[in-house]
C-alpha cells in the first residue's frame, strides 16, 4: 500500500513537473515528438548529483548516467567480447597502420529534433568536442589538425577519420566522454544551454528537466528501436546523499533502483528478498595508492616494498567492504584486455614488510608519513586506519589527511617535491576500454605533473608504454604483452599499490528487470533495457 502511494505520488509529481517544465526542457530544439501519457516512472536514486554538466562534449563526470541514455556513439564496448560493437556506425575499416579509419553509418537515425543523422553531423559533433578541448577531449589527440589528423564526411553516411599517428579510433568512438553524436541544431549551443535541460541526442530518452541534483528523462517516441508497454517512458534520477535515506526509499518502494550503499545498509537490503534483489557489476574502477618515489623515504625501492607488504588488502575487501570488491591483480582490472593474473600482487605480510624495511636501511625513528585521500570516501578512511595500525607495528606513524579533491590534487602537483604527500589514494577508471588510460596517464613521465602521482621517470617503462600504444591498432597481442610487462615492472618496484577493484552493487526492486552496467560506462544504466515485470 505504501509502495503504491509513493508510486502514485511520484507519478503525479512527475506529471506535474513535466507539464510545468514543458517550456524549458528541449524548448530549444523544437522537438515535436512528445511521449504519450504514461505515468509509469522509473525512479533511480544515487549518492551524488547525476551530472556536473549536461554538455555531451565537455561532461567528464557522473553525467554519463544521463548522457548514455540521451546520446549515442558510433561504437559501444561489449564486455562479453572485450571488443566494440556497432552503434550508430554499421561497420568500419582501417588501413594497415591504423591511421585512416572509414566508418559506415546507419541511415535510420533521427535526433530528438526530428532531423536525420548524416555524416556531416557526426563530423561536426567530433569537431565540437575537439574545439572545446574540455573533459575527455584528449581522446581525439591523434585526430587534431595540429597532430596531422582530420575528420571529414566522405559520403552521406560515411565518415573518414585520419590520425596523425596510429590510434585505435574504434575504441575512441566508444568512449564514455566526448564521443557523443548530436544534432547540428545544438552544435553552437553553450554548456549553460544544455544544463537548462536541453539536448540534441538520438538516444531513447530526451531530457525534460534538469535541476542540478535531479534529472527527468522522457521517452523519445521516434527512437528507431520502438517502445513496448512494459518499458519505462519516464525516468527520474535524483541525488539522495545518505545511504540510510536511499535504503528507506528502497524499502518503502519509493524508488526502484539505487546503489552506493554502506555495507550495513547493503546487507540489510539484500536480506529483504520479498522487496528487492541485488545485482553486482564488475567495473573497470580501481583504487590506487601512489607512493612518492621522488623523495625520501619512498624513493627507496625496498622501503616501498615494505609499504606494499604492510597494506591490509584482504581485510579491506572482506571486513571494510564486506566482499563488495576484489583485490586487484596488476593495474588493469579483470575483464579488460591487458589484465593478466600472473602479475605479482602483494599480500599483507608484516614479517616481509619488516624484512624489506631492514633491507632499505631507513630508520623508523620519528618516521612519519602522510597519506591524502578524498574527504567523502569513508571506505578509504577505514582501510587507511587499518594500514595505520599495521605501519605502527613497524614503528612508522601514518598521518591521514582527508581533503577535497582540488586540494589533494594541488598538493600532489606542488612544484616543491618535499611539500607533496608521501602517499596518495584515488580511484581511476578509463575513458574508453583501453589500458592505455592507466599507463599513459599514471606511469609515463611528465614534464608537468598531472596524474603521474608516483612522480615516475623510468625510461624503460616509458619505452614499453610508447611501444604498446603504437601497437594497439596493428598488433593487439604485442601491445597486451607490453602492458603486462609494464605491470610486472610496477609491481616489482612497488611504484604504486593496486588496492582493490571496485564492484558496483545495485539494489533493484522486484518489480523491474533488465538492469545491467557496462564496465566501460561506470554507473550508467541503459533505462531503455529496463522493463516492468
Amino acid at each position, binding site marked *: 500500500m505504501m509502495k503504491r502511494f509513493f508510486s502514485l505520488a511520484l507519478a503525479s509529481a512527475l506529471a506535474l513537473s513535466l507539464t510545468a517544465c514543458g517550456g524549458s526542457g528541449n524548448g530549444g530544439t523544437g522537438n515535436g515528438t512528445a511521449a504519450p501519457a504514461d505515468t509509469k516512472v522509473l525512479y533511480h536514486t544515487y549518492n551524488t548529483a547525476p551530472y556536473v554538466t549536461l554538455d555531451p562534449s565537455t561532461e567528464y563526470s557522473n553525467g554519463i548516467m544521463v548522457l548514455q541514455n540521451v546520446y549515442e556513439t558510433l561504437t559501444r564496448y561489449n564486455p562479453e567480447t572485450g571488443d566494440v560493437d556497432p552503434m550508430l556506425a554499421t561497420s568500419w575499416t582501417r588501413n594497415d597502420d591504423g591511421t585512416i579509419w572509414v566508418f559506415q553509418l546507419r541511415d535510420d537515425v533521427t535526433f530528438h529534433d526530428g532531423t536525420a543523422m548524416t555524416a556531416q553531423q557526426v563530423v561536426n559533433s567530433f569537431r565540437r568536442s575537439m574545439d572545446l578541448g574540455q573533459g575527455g577531449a584528449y581522446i581525439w589527440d591523434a585526430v587534431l589538425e595540429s597532430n596531422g589528423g582530420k575528420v571529414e564526411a566522405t559520403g552521406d553516411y560515411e565518415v573518414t577519420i585520419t590520425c596523425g599517428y596510429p590510434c585505435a579510433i574504434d575504441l575512441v568512438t566508444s568512449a564514455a566522454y566526448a564521443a557523443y553524436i548530436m544534432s547540428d541544431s545544438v552544435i553552437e549551443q553553450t554548456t549553460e544551454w544544455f544544463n537548462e535541460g536541453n539536448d540534441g541526442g538520438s538516444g531513447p530518452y530526451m531530457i525534460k528537466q534538469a535541476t542540478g541534483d535531479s534529472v527527468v528523462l522522457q521517452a523519445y517516441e521516434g527512437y528507431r528501436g520502438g517502445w513496448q508497454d512494459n518499458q519505462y517512458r519516464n525516468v527520474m534520477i535524483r541525488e539522495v546523499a545518505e545511504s540510510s535515506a536511499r535504503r528507506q526509499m528502497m524499502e518503502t518502494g519509493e524508488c526502484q533502483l539505487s546503489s552506493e550503499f554502506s555495507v550495513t545498509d547493503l546487507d540489510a537490503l539484500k536480506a529483504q528478498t520479498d522487496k528487492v534483489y541485488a545485482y553486482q557489476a564488475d567495473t573497470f574502477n580501481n583504487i590506487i595508492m601512489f607512493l612518492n618515489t621522488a623523495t625520501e623515504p619512498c624513493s627507496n625501492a625496498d622501503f616501498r616494498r615494505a609499504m606494499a607488504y604492510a597494506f591490509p588488502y584482504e581485510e579491506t575487501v572482506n571486513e571494510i567492504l564486506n566482499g563488495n570488491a576484489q583485490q586487484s591483480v596488476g593495474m588493469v582490472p579483470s575483464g579488460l584486455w591487458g589484465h593478466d593474473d600472473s602479475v605479482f600482487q602483494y599480500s599483507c605480510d608484516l614479517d616481509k614488510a619488516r624484512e624489506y624495511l631492514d633491507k632499505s636501511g631507513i630508520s623508523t625513528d620519528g618516521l612519519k608519513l602522510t597519506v591524502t585521500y578524498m574527504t567523502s570516501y569513508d571506505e578509504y578512511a577505514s582501510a587507511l*586506519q587499518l594500514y595505520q595500525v599495521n605501519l605502527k607495528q613497524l614503528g612508522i606513524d601514518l598521518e591521514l*589527511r582527508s581533503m577535497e579533491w582540488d586540494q589533494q590534487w594541488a598538493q600532489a602537483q606542488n612544484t616543491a617535491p618535499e611539500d607533496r604527500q608521501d602517499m596518495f589514494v584515488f580511484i581511476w577508471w578509463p575513458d574508453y576500454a583501453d589500458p592505455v588510460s592507466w599507463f599513459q596517464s599514471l606511469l609515463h613521465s611528465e614534464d608537468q605533473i598531472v596524474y603521474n602521482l608516483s612522480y615516475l621517470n623510468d625510461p624503460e617503462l616509458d619505452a614499453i608504454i610508447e611501444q604498446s600504444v603504437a601497437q594497439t591498432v596493428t598488433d593487439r597481442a604485442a601491445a597486451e604483452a607490453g602492458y603486462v610487462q609494464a605491470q610486472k615492472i610496477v609491481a616489482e618496484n612497488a611504484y604504486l599499490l593496486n588496492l582493490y577493484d571496485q564492484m558496483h552493487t545495485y539494489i533493484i526492486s522486484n518489480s523491474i528487470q533488465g538492469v545491467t552496467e557496462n564496465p566501460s560506462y561506470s554507473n550508467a544504466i541503459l533505462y531503455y533495457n529496463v522493463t516492468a515485470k
Partner: protein
Amino acid sequence: MNNFIQAMRPRIKSFQESLYLLTRNKLSLIALIILILLILMAILAPVIIPYPEDLVDAAHTAIKLQPPSADHLMGTDELGRDIFSRVIYGARVSLTAALAAVGLALIIGIPLGAVAGSFGGWVDNVIMRITDVFLSFPPLLLAIAMVAVLGSSLNNAILAISLSWWPWYTRLIRGQAISVKERKFVQAAETIGSGRMKIIFKHIIPNCISPVIVQASMDIGGVILTVASLSFLGLGAQLPTPEWGLMISMGRRFFPDSWWYCIFPGVAIFITVLCFNLLGDAIREILDPKTRKN
C-alpha cells in the same frame, strides 16, 4: 587617589556569593556538576578508559560493529574499537578545542574592542569596519572557508573558529568600553596621568568583562558544535582522533543498524552543549541582577 579610583569601581562579586547564586538554581547546579565531571573525565581519560589502545593504535575487525555489551558499554565501531573509550577521550579533544578557540577569540576580540571603544574616531572606525566584514559572514561558513584555505586539521579548525568568532567579542566590549570610559574612576585615572593603554587594560577591560564572560561561557557550547560540524565535514580533526563530530561522520554510514556508533557521541555533544548553555545562563544571572528570577 588610587584608593579613590578603587572605591569608584563597581563591586565585583565575591567567589562565595557567586557560588551561592550558582547553586541556588538546581538546573545550573546539575549542569555545573556534569561539567566538572566532564572536565575530570577529560583530564583522567588516559587512565580511566577501558581500552586505551583503541584510541589510535588498534583495530579488531573480528568484533566490528558490536552492539553495547558488558565488555563494550557503547558498542564497537567498524574497526572493532571500543566506542566508550573513544567517547570518553573525545571529551578531552572537544573541550580542549572549544576552550582554545574561545580563548583565542577572546585574546583577539577583547583588546580590539576596548581600544575601539576607548579611542573612538578613526581607530574605532577602522576596527569596527573590519569586524563588520567578518560579521557579515555566518561564523560556520567563514570557518569552513578558512579551513578550506588553511587545510583540514583540528588546529586549523580551532584557528578558523577563533578568527570567525572574535568580532562578536569586539563589538560587545566596545559598547561597554564606550560607557565605562565616561565613568569617574576612568576620568580620575586620566587626571593622575595614567597612560591610555594602562587605563584600557587596568580599568576599562576589567569593568567591561562581565557580559563577555557570559557570552564566552555560552559560546563554548556553540564552539563545541562548530568543531564537531567541521570534523563531521572532514575539515576538522583527522582520523583516527576520537573527536565526537568525526565519530558521528564515520558512524552515519552504519546508521540505523549500528545506531550506537552515532548516538553515543551525539549524546555526548548534546549533554556538553546543554550544560554549557545552562551554565552560561547562570553566570548571566550572577553578573546581571536584572535578569535574576528571584
